[in-house]
């Protein structure tokens, strides 16, 4: 069953064409990634989907047009967006509080999840006291406890060092197998997309259009060794090839 569907979505900021033509769909319980160079317009796509910006084209959820700030999404911004003045526990309950849940009830709901997210014992800490990986897990915890229809994750591990990122990818893959969230992930990391996704949309540089769609028919739990690991490597090489042959190298910018 298709949950999110975008048909020929376009967006320009003033005279700057950012999204040229984006069509994609995400099915229930599916993990889909959007892979594209930085500055392509990936975060802008989330702005459109969440209603922060308006674009052209069709956006549907469960077949119905998306309205402004629809209640379907739990959104994790590109930076962890933890509030420095709130303790980790209170950051985790933020979405539930906004939904109108009392502080106590919200805390009861998130408390059991701290162990699973590797944050047990850090409930009373401020974000600045946590490592990068822990901050990302806290942000993810804040996102999933909202129990919305779908997760929107914007480069959740982009700011982490390579080793922490690999650890976090494994952890997220395992979490996803338990929970089967419907998820749309933005990334510019080919390996991350292959490791986590059921399907991958590859975007061109700005103005972005979908240039290829890949299915990742690899068994879960994902494994980067053995036969499965080799097949993953082949797929990564193929995707990288598409990305490298994209641009008529007119120079790309970074965000």
């Amino acid at each position, binding site marked *: 069953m298709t949950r999110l569907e975008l048909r020929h979505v376009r967006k320009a900021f003033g005279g700057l064409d950012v999204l040229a033509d984006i069509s994609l769909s995400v099915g229930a319980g599916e993990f889909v990634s959007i892979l594209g160079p930085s500055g392509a317009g990936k975060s802008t796509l989330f702005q459109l989907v969440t209603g*922060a910006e308006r674009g052209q084209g069709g956006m549907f959820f469960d077949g119905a047009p998306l309205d402004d700030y629809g209640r379907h999404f739990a959104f994790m*911004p590109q930076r*962890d*967006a933890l509030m420095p*003045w709130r303790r980790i526990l209170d950051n985790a309950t933020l979405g539930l509080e906004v939904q109108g849940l009392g502080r106590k009830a919200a805390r009861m709901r998130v408390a059991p999840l701290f162990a699973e997210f590797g944050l047990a014992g850090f409930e009373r800490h*401020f974000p*600045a006291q946590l*490592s990068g990986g822990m901050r990302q897990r806290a942000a993810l915890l804040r996102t999933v406890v*909202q129990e919305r229809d779908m997760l929107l994750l914007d480069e959740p591990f982009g700011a982490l060092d390579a080793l922490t990122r690999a650890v976090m990818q494994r952890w997220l893959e395992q979490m996803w197998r338990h929970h089967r969230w419907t998820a749309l992930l933005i990334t510019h990391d080919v390996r991350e997309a292959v490791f986590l996704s059921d399907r991958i949309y590859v975007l061109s540089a700005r103005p972005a259009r979908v240039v290829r769609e890949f299915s990742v028919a690899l068994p879960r739990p994902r494994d980067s060794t053995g036969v499965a690991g080799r097949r993953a490597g082949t797929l990564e090489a193929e995707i990288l090839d598409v990305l490298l042959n994209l641009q008529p190298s007119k120079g790309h910018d970074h965000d």
Partner: protein
Amino acid sequence: MSVGFLLVAWELYANHSGIKPTILPAPSRVFEQAVLNREALIDNAIPTIRATLIGFACSLGAAFVLSMLVDFFQPLRRALFPVFIVSQTLPLVAIAPLVVLWFGFGLTPKIMLVALVTFFPMLVALVQGYEATEAEIGQMLRVMGAGRWRVFMLARLPSALPYFFAGLRISITYAVVGAIFAEYAGAAKGLGIYMLNAKNNFRPDLVLAAVGVSAGLTLVLFGLTVLLQRLAMPWERDAGRQIAGKGPRR
């Protein structure tokens, strides 16, 4: 340290250069006279403190209300800011006597002058603080279902706290100066009028004693704002005390 050195140098110069104490009194003499005249000094400091605190409180309240209005209705900002900026360029020396002329020797003109000099810095600090809110936090809250008011309370207001306290530290010193200026222009009692009378009686030692009292007052108020900030922003205080190995932040 540097203050101590300056005082010693001043003491030596005043004692050995042959300048009369009615021109340049030594610090020891200023201190001696301050102790001798302590009752008069305290008596005159109280109205100054009162004017400073009441004036500052009024200005804080007004700045807070206006900062919120400006944050919610952006066009208001373009309409109002030029007026406020002009209010900041008015020379206090010229304004103070006029305000006293219009509103008398009582507390009112002092409160108004203190408010005049502290209002704009506080307003700017608050408005800048709101704007320093991380855009991602705002967007995330909207997706969570928060309206503008919730976003303001949950994100914009707390984001403004460091700016608010920076503004507070600057403004509190302006406030004392403003109160003294107002009294200088005319008052029944207060450090400002005390300085004026001492000067007219050729008592620079008493002028300096009153200056010392006002400096002490400013320092105490400044210290209070620092204390208040530590209480209001515990996450800044605890940030250094990290338990988890902190990786690169963003």
